[in-house]
């Protein structure tokens, strides 16, 4: 027999039917249904196949603890696997289906795994493929079959078509959970002026009240709930919002579902919001989760939690069957049985306790329930559905003696209640075992976090309400100093009759397949096996058996598993310990954490002010950190990288070229002690640098390794502009700030980043001066760029002719290419005009714009270093810059750079490498080896390789132990095992091209 919709009852809207599709079949539910309740109403029993054994599974709960009805929701790029049908809100047009089954969950060929189950027990993965050598290969062969047979649903491989927002929130009080305790807390706190947020994971507010038939404060539960909600008008209420994680300083992660439940959602809306809330106080009113009991085949479709059964009847107006057995060990099952009986379901109640509480038994009997005390469930009868339950009684020897089977088509189980204290565990708060109530209770809560209601082991609804009010009164007092009237917080407890701990029902001589964690197919024998094999810590047992892992996070089977482990080890539960629960409490779409930061919004894209002009001219782009830099400038469409860069670099060597150098970091260093500051941070001196002169400098780290390099311009007595590499612009800025704020507070220096304020372009080549001269306007106060007026490393102000007039520029004679060169800087607003004006003159001189690749070729040929060489392992000497270090003043890194190991002369040092055979090439990253020992890390490595525009042929730059001093003229092998090449090359000094610098200085 299957489930069905009851003629009346529940808070579903019977006038609003909703059509949906299950496994390709059209079905109908009602507004207010979850997918689980709608499936039950449609008579679907098997809605899933289990993880390893492919056992048929049905709906087992009515909440996030669901371990059975894991389904796939949505289609195409919106396909989401492993959704808990109990948490999926039904909407018109919803598409869902079973998973981990072929052809479908009702008839699944994978069910043969159940027959071979003994091979798939705990530790299967770890043990089966262990073997000398062969294990790995076998594993790799079998893995794809095993993964296919055992598993969950599969996610879409397409990009997520939805958007998500990240919302930063603040409030005085965050109340988590809208059950009786949460509602009472929010109402009291808001009435005293606190800014309250109330979050509820369900789409309906009320928690346990939604399925309650109680009378609360002289009103029916539903009326009490409506009155509370009406009183919460000043509270920010967020339904469909799960507090999935509690973090340091009580920051809470919320995931709010915005459009999942809407049939045709406004495409402008995000699918969900990841809300980061920073509340001053938190009241955790997250309730408690019912525990099952392990007995034979307790995972059959039709077996569910007793409280869930009552929820389906009372809240959703659906019945799980016609003939029910409810089996429990505490008082809570009596109300469940009564709810079923009132809905016309023939109900038998088994109370594991020897004597049923007389008052409760009387009420149940009066409602038509058959009450049997001292009985336990032993084994379910039926495979794909329930057709009976064998029951048993404890005999005098303590063993269970099985008796006859009770015919039934659905079974409700309760092994007690576990407070949902997961969020406290996220903060490392250790729960405390309460033997009397057979559950973990919150221990000391983190400062600012209070618990209220059944999460604290307070079971009676009226006590939960009082608890919520007391916790809210504390929060009001702490935040405002006011002392609201509220009753004292109740003590944990409230059941009239003690619960009798019950974890597992075993019968001597009978092998029962009893599940502890149905989601992961973990049985009681798996737990015992783990204990036998030495996994005696719950953390190890968890990993070995996978009990309570993944989306379950210990909601269903943790306590049973722990109790069984404790029993196997003959110790108490507190002695055995408890695993930590980890965020997220329930799964959160990865997209929510990304928010809007995806695709082009993943990170900022930085464009120089000359970007558009270069786009217009057809430049091909390269990413340099966040920057877009021109890689090369094709002379005509289709010109490839190699042709283009060789042409560009050759133009610079022979005539003139123009390159955008805006991305260099630029830092204004100003103040009376600016020169002193620079003297301390650079290896070379800046104190005597004349005004309107610039100088190349190198920065070391404290440990003596090269950090960065760049040119510093002295613009005035107390005013400098220092440039950094593009890569280190931000780190050098932070380093200078660090030194000035923490180490040398006495220095009167201010620094500011001016990287974005200036646009710069370098005009380089033998015709650079002619070119630049032609671009300049006559200027009475500057602009003399002759060799006398602007010698090497000189600076001048000038005026540049642009399309619509003149702009002021700053020119420095700096060369990175090795040619005569000028770096021209204009305010960012003028930089595009400057680029166009300079490019026109460059072209007039037969030159062209050049990009990063040509820049690389030129600097490799010249032997100048970049970040590729200055990789955090290199000393001044390694880079061939040892002579720059001042001996007249101390500077950062000067002491530790002299450590013996950094001063050895057999360290890898900068060198040039040229193939012996013309036409051969090698690549960046290749290993430099001695000819007779081509192996391992060799003697060095290649950091740059290029066609050499002036020297001709292929040219590499890199490092070799001992440097050119030891190797110049000798032959080495440049090995590239990854690409399968070994090239003979000759080592040379990195200063082959114009070693005296006549071209730069001329």
């Amino acid at each position, binding site marked *: 027999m299957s489930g069905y919709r009851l003629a009346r009852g529940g808070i579903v809207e019977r006038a609003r039917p909703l059509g949906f599709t299950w496994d390709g079949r059209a079905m109908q539910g009602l507004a207010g249904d979850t997918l689980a309740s709608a499936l039950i109403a449609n008579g679907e029993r098997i809605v899933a196949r289990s993880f390893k054994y492919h056992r048929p599974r049905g709906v087992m709960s009515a909440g996030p603890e669901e371990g059975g009805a894991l389904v796939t929701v949505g289609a195409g790029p919106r396909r989401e696997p492993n959704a808990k049908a109990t948490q999926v809100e039904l909407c018109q047009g919803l598409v869902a289906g079973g998973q981990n089954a072929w052809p479908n969950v009702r008839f699944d060929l994978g069910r043969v795994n159940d027959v071979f189950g003994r091979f798939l027990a705990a530790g299967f993965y770890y043990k089966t493929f262990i073997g000398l050598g062969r294990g790995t290969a076998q594993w790799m062969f079998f893995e794809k079959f095993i993964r296919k047979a055992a598993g969950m649903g599969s996610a879409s491989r397409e990009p997520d078509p939805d958007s998500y927002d990240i919302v930063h929130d603040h409030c005085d009080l965050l109340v988590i959970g809208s059950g009786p305790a949460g509602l009472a807390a929010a109402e009291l706190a808001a009435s005293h002026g606190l800014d309250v947020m109330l979050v509820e994971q369900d789409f309906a507010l009320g928690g346990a009240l939604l399925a309650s038939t109680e009378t609360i404060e002289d009103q029916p539960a539903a009326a009490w709930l409506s009155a509370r909600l009406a009183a919460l008008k000043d509270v920010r209420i967020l339904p469909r919002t799960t507090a999935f994680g509690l*973090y*340091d*300083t009580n*920051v809470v992660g919320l995931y709010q579902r915005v459009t999942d439940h809407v049939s045709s959602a406004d495409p402008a809306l995000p699918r969900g919001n990841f809300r*980061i809330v*920073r509340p001053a106080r938190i009241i955790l009113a997250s309730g408690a989760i019912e525990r099952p009991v392990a007995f034979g085949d307790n995972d059959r479709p039709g077996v569910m939690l007793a409280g869930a059964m009552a929820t389906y009847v009372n809240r959703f107006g659906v019945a799980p069957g016609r003939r029910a057995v409810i089996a429990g060990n505490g008082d809570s099952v009596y109300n469940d049985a009564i709810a079923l009986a009132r809905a016309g379901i023939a109900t038998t109640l088994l109370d594991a306790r020897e004597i049923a509480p007389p008052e409760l038994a009387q009420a149940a009997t009066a409602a038509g329930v058959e009450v049997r005390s001292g009985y336990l469930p032993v084994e379910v009868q039926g495979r794909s559905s329930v057709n009976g339950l064998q029951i048993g009684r404890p005999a005098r020897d303590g063993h269970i003696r099985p008796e006859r089977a009770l015919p039934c088509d659905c079974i409700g189980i309760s092994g007690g209640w576990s407070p949902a204290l997961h969020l406290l565990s996220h903060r490392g708060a250790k729960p405390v075992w309460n033997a009397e109530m057979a559950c973990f209770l919150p221990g000391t809560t983190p400062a600012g976090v209070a618990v209220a209601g059944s999460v604290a082991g307070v079971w009676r609804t009226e006590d939960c309400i009082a608890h919520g009010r007391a916790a809210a009164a504390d929060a009001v007092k702490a935040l405002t100093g006011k002392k609201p009237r509220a009753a004292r917080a109740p003590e944990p407890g409230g059941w009239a009759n003690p619960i009798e701990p019950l974890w597992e029902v075993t019968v001597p001589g009978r092998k029962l397949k009893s599940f502890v964690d149905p989601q992961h197919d973990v049985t009681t024998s798996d737990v015992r096996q783990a204990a036998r094999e030495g996994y005696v810590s719950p953390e190890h047992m968890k990993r070995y058996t996978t009990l309570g892992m993944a989306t379950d996070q210990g909601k269903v089977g943790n306590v049973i598993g722990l109790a069984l482990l404790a029993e196997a080890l003959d110790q108490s539960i507190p002695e055995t310990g408890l695993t930590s629960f980890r965020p997220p409490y329930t799964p959160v779409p990865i997209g929510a954490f990304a928010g809007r930061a995806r695709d082009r919004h993943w990170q900022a894209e930085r464009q120089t002010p000359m970007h558009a002009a270069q786009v217009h001219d057809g430049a091909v782009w390269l990413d340099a950190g966040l920057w877009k830099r021109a890689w090369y400038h094709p002379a005509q469409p289709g010109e490839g990288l190699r042709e283009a860069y060789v042409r560009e670099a050759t133009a610079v060597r022979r005539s003139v070229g123009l390159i955008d150098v805006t991305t260099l970091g630029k830092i204004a260093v100003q103040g009376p002690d600016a020169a002193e500051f620079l003297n*301390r941070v650079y290896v070379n001196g800046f104190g005597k640098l004349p005004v309107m002169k610039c100088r190349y400098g190198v920065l070391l780290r*404290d*440990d003596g390794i090269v950090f960065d390099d760049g040119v510093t311009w002295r613009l005035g007595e107390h005013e400098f502009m220092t440039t950094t590499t593009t890569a280190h612009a931000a780190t050098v800025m*932070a380093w200078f*700030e*660090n030194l*000035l*704020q*923490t*180490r040398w*507070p006495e220095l009167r220096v201010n620094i500011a980043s001016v990287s974005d304020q200036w646009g710069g372009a370098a005009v380089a080549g033998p015709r650079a001066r002619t070119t630049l001269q032609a671009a300049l306007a006559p200027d009475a106060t500057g602009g003399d760029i002759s060799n006398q007026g602007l010698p090497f490393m000189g600076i001048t102000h000038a005026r540049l002719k642009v399309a619509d007039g003149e702009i002021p520029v700053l020119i420095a004679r700096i060369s990175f290419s090795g040619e005569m060169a000028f770096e021209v800087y204009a305010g960012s607003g003028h930089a595009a005009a400057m680029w166009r004006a300079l490019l026109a003159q460059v072209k007039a001189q037969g030159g062209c714009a050049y990009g990063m690749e040509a820049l690389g070729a030129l600097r490799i040929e010249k032997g100048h270093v970049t970040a590729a060489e200055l990789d955090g392992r290199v000393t001044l000497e390694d880079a061939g810059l040892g002579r720059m270090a001042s001996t007249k003043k*101390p*500077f*950062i890194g*000067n*002491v*530790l750079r*002299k*450590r013996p190991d950094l001063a050895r002369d057999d360290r890898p040092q900068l060198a040039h490498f040229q193939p012996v055979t013309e036409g051969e090439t090698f690549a960046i990253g290749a290993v430099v080896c001695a000819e007779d020992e081509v192996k391992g890390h060799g003697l060095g490595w290649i950091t740059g390789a290029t066609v050499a525009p002036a020297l001709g042929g292929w040219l590499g730059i890199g490092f070799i132990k001992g440097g050119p001093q030891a190797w110049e003229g000798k032959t080495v092998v440049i090995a590239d095992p990854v690409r399968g090449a070994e090239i003979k090359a000759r080592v040379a000094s990195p200063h082959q091209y114009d070693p005296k610098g006549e071209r730069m200085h001329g």
Partner: protein
Amino acid sequence: MLRIPCPFCGPRDHTEFSYEGDATVVYPALDASEEAWFEAVFLRDNPRGAHSEVWHHIQGCRSFLIVERDTLTHEITGARLAHRPTAEALK
């Protein structure tokens, strides 16, 4: 998420800051001995409990702060500007 009370900006998420190391380290003079520099650069205590740390409000006011943080509980009990003259001026 840690919340760091920046003297300029108020309480802010730690994601706006970058951690810059142990605030108890006293860096020696630039011409001090190799031993002194070795100790300052490489040797660190790993205290359990109260600790002074340097944090850079890199996505905020760019101040370097001395933050008092408990390494065991993550509790932050104070933050002040590392730059003493400015800290004095703010008093």
